């Protein structure tokens, strides 16, 4: 794995909540056009870490941060960097689908533009492209003006993905996007991820190890032992992490011995 090609990289990322040190020295590479999965037991800091990648972490009161996150070589935590601008390049999909309830499907897809104060040259084209990329176009093309909350859970999540895609992000962060969904919707979304991967960098937090094996090129295994801050135990190509893990703790986790 070469170091120079990396699109997104974290260097010694540390996270505190108040005085509590919850993440220690997380250094990971997220190569362009590949999917990286973050796995590990509950409470080990995966979701916290992913929020440092688009500067959502600092919205939590008492949040503390140390280290660097480099996007195309530039530290997004540098002086004079506007966190809002960072989020234009690094999109996020959350665990629970959160379409805006006061907007229609079409308005939701375009909401990112509205919220960042940009105008779109060709709104309907953007709407169709985004919904196609999220694999939901066929289901909603005839009801774009229906309220977004009239969709099912899986559809809402794909709508949220479309909404993020409409911003044309370089990186897409996904925090357990399927854990609130049924297996059918989960499969659809995993297919979507695989289709999107060649176009952007994707980082996905997941509890589901089979999912990691299905979609991810790389996998990082997080662990927080006994009151110590969470950290990365092992990081490598997915096949290697799951089939020939180096660290015995990785071995225990992927073979279901705990977590």
């Amino acid at each position, binding site marked *: 794995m070469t170091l120079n090609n990396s699109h997104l990289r974290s260097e010694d990322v540390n996270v505190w909540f108040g005085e509590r040190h919850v993440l220690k020295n997380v250094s990971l590479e997220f190569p362009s056009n590949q999917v990286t999965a973050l796995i590990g037991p509950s409470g080990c800091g995966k979701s916290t870490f992913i929020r440092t990648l*688009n500067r*959502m972490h600092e*919205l939590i*009161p008492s949040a503390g941060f140390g280290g660097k996150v480099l996007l195309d070589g530039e530290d997004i935590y540098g002086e004079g960097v506007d966190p*809002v*601008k960072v*989020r*234009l390049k690094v*999109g*996020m999909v*959350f665990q*629970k689908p*959160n*379409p*805006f*309830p*006061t907007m229609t499907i079409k308005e939701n897809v375009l*909401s*990112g533009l*509205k*919220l*960042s*104060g940009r105008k779109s040259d060709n709104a309907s084209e953007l709407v169709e492209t985004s919904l196609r990329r999220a694999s939901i176009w066929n289901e909603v093309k005839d009801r774009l003006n229906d309220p977004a*909350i*009239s969709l099912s859970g899986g559809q809402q999540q794909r709508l*949220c993905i479309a*909404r*993020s895609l409409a*911003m044309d992000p370089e990186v897409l962060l996904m925090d357990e996007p399927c854990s609130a969904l049924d297996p059918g919707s989960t499969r659809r979304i995993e297919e979507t991820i695989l289709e999107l991967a060649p176009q952007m960098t994707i980082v996905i937090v997941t509890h589901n190890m089979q999912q990691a094996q299905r979609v991810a090129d790389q996998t990082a295994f997080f662990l927080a032992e006994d009151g110590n801050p969470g950290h990365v135990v092992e990081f490598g190509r997915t096949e290697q992490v799951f089939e020939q893990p180096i660290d015995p703790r990785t071995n225990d986790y992927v073979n279901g011995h705990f977590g």
Partner: protein
Amino acid sequence: MEKVIDLTPVQRPKGNESAPWAKIELKTRAAVVLASVVPGAIALAIFFATGIDFMAMLFAIFMPIQVVAAALVGILVYGRRGILEGLLVVVTIFFASFIVVLLFSVLWSVIDNGSRAISWQFISQNNYYIKPNTSLDYGGVGHAIIGSLLIVGTSTIITVPMGLATAVYLTETQGKTKGIIRTLLQAMSGLPSVVSGLFIYAAFIASGITSYAGWTGSLALIPLMLPTVARVSEEALRLVPQELRNGALALGAPVWRAFMMVTLPAARSGMVTAVLLGIARVIGETAPLVLTTFAADRTNLNLFGGAMASLPTYLFGFISMGFEESLQRAWGAALVIMILVAILFTTARLASRTRSQVRK
């Protein structure tokens, strides 16, 4: 080969073994019914038979019997510790009914007495030539209604943005002074209304800046209205799930856009409720207006030009004049105020109901 599925129901055991709890239910239910009805019947019988004073009957005869009956039912169901149970039920219902009766008495007397004064002419005319004992065919509260609308309207225009912005500060930011602000709002909500009137009087009228005027009344109402508007707005904003805000921010929105385009629309009905409740809170306030706007006989549309009538000060003026007609006018004004309050309240309720229907 077709499989035959036997659909005949399984025989349920009959007699004492089936549903053993059902039998006790019946016993309990009978006892409760008896205990609810019999004491009242006995008390009423004694009341009619002996002509004893109603309140005395209520407390000296009905209550004790009812309490004993309830205690007996309690013992029946729960054993000895059930006595308190029965007492609790009786006490609760008694106290609740007592106060409900009083409150209904208020409503009823306003409606009953006020409706005799209400007429189209009452609502539209003013009081220019009306003496305290003029018959109710002349004059009315028209000027007072207009005055109230102007004064309260002005207060609303000033208070609502303030209250909303304060609510935004309390929910959307991470300032360190949030606790202090909340405490102060709480303190403000305890401000006696007469003190608010005194404050404005001291600041503007006693100091010579102006004499009685409508706008001073509006100012005096602001500290009374602000805590309500701020509190209800804050509640409405809190109810908007954080995930919506996160979703907007994750798309690259600056906080103010996330608020205006996502949070605020989602809290819209709560905001409406906040405004309406704020108005309802001050529309009947008397003391602050007596001290600042004084009162007037005729319509004054100029907030800056002298005394202005309002519904509460109208009532205040007529309540102690001593004539039958004046009193009727007072009741009429009271009814008008209550109608306005009821309209505001119902609208606020309807607004909050649409909110709960938006969520799936």
